[in-house]
């Protein structure tokens, strides 16, 4: 009987705190979003599961000696996991559409306005009592507008580790919400006529150009923004492995098994940061709000930039493709395609939107480098 009493005392029932219960509900919510709603399930499923595990009383998953503690220490504290994901994403990315039409980079640049405007907004939020975001906090939050998960996690782990959980959750949630957030903004800023514009077919890009491209990107980053070289460097390594054609077995492993393994652990480690004391705060509400703003502003800036470019371009440019500049590859490009098809059933914008889409990845990595250099 005494043993049963000890067993009872070792159950969680006697030790649950409200915050842990609420966070478990958040974990279940993330699992629901991942499984039923299919919101970025590759990340949100492990994140949600990690949130469940880390909030179990007495289990100690995230305390010294616990599984999630080790995973976080080894993979996120060091920055290794997001960099490996970035290498894998590089190996998965085809820059052909961007090389064929390099001006699309300007759309990727414009969409970063979402990041920097949000940085300003986060600081302005300090006027509301209860918010006390530092510049570092604000930068880490603003990067959500980059719509790029590993970049956000990497920057947050450097600038504001205590906000990492909320930032990662917001980043992946909004990336999943791109099909809902973007279309109204895209439609509000364009006319039916503009949305109907068909674009010229892209030229073919040679293998040689695709090989030199990542090296050129790396070289420019080295020269002008060394703080961005971890992210950009690993991305370019992955892309070079892909395009060089001489290390296909390494490239395939980076695109598949390696990125899968790291994704499982990255998700669990991010989930381990979803504890009540770090997540159930006013800051989280601010982060959720600012993240939505960042996405909206980035989308708008991309579309407006595309309209501006269309005016000066001899070739027709459909301003919808500007929305793809926020990255969120390939979701944003698909959304562009869908909205374009609604306006004109013969208008296939997918390939044209891939250019600004991958440009947005580079753009937000560059923005992250700038923030590291100036704020970090």
């Amino acid at each position, binding site marked *: 009987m005494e*043993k*049963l009493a000890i067993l009872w005392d070792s159950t969680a029932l006697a030790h649950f705190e*409200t915050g842990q219960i609420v966070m478990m509900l*958040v974990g279940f919510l993330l699992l629901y*979003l991942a499984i039923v709603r*299919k919101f970025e399930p590759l990340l949100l499923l492990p994140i949600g599961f990690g949130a469940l595990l880390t909030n179990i009383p007495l289990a100690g998953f995230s305390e010294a000696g616990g599984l999630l503690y080790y995973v976080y220490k080894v993979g996120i504290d060091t920055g290794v996991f997001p960099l490996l994901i970035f290498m894998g994403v590089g190996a998965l990315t085809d820059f052909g559409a961007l090389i064929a039409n390099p001006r699309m980079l300007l759309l990727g640049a414009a969409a970063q306005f979402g990041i920097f405007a949000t940085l300003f907004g986060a600081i302005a939020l300090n006027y509301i009592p209860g918010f006390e975001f530092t510049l570092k906090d604000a930068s880490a939050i603003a990067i959500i507008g980059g719509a790029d998960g590993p970049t956000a996690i990497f920057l947050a782990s450097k600038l504001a580790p205590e906000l990492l959980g909320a930032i990662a959750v917001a980043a992946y949630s909004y990336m999943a919400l791109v099909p809902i957030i973007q279309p109204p903004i895209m439609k509000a800023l364009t006319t039916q006529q503009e949305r109907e514009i068909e674009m010229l077919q892209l030229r073919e890009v040679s293998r040689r150009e695709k090989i030199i491209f990542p090296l050129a990107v790396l070289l420019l980053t080295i020269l002008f923004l060394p703080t961005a070289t971890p992210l950009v460097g690993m991305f370019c390594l992955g892309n070079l492995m892909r395009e060089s054609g001489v290390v296909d077995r390494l490239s395939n492993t980076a695109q598949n098994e390696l990125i899968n393994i790291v994704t499982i652990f990255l998700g669990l480690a991010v989930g381990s940061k979803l504890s009540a004391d770090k*997540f159930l*705060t*006013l800051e989280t509400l601010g982060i*959720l709000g600012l993240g939505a703003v960042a996405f909206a502003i980035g989308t708008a800036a991309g579309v407006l930039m595309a309209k501006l470019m269309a005016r000066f371009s001899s070739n027709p440019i459909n301003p919808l493709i500007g929305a793809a500049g926020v990255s969120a590859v390939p979701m944003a490009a698909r959304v562009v395609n869908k909205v374009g098809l609604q306006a004109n059933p013969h208008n296939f914008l997918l390939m044209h939107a891939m250019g600004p889409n991958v440009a947005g990845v580079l753009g937000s990595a560059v923005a992250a480098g700038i923030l590291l250099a100036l704020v970090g």
Partner: protein
Amino acid sequence: MQQDIGQLLIEAATLLVAGMTFVFLFLTLLIGAIHVIAWINQRLGAEPTIEHAVAAPAANPTEPSQGVISAISAAVHQYRKQHR
């Protein structure tokens, strides 16, 4: 020392009883849980076939947006209210 072993044996016997009791209780609870799951499943009606789910991956994550964000927001508010 023989006495010590005796005491250990008693402890082991208690472990035996307590352990088996707990294992049976726990797995019986799980039986109940499975019946509840089956009941819920029936109430929810036919699930979308897998074909459908595969054919339209990440297709229509419609309207939940408001729901999601506001659910998290509500949770935070709730919690903060209690812990002020």
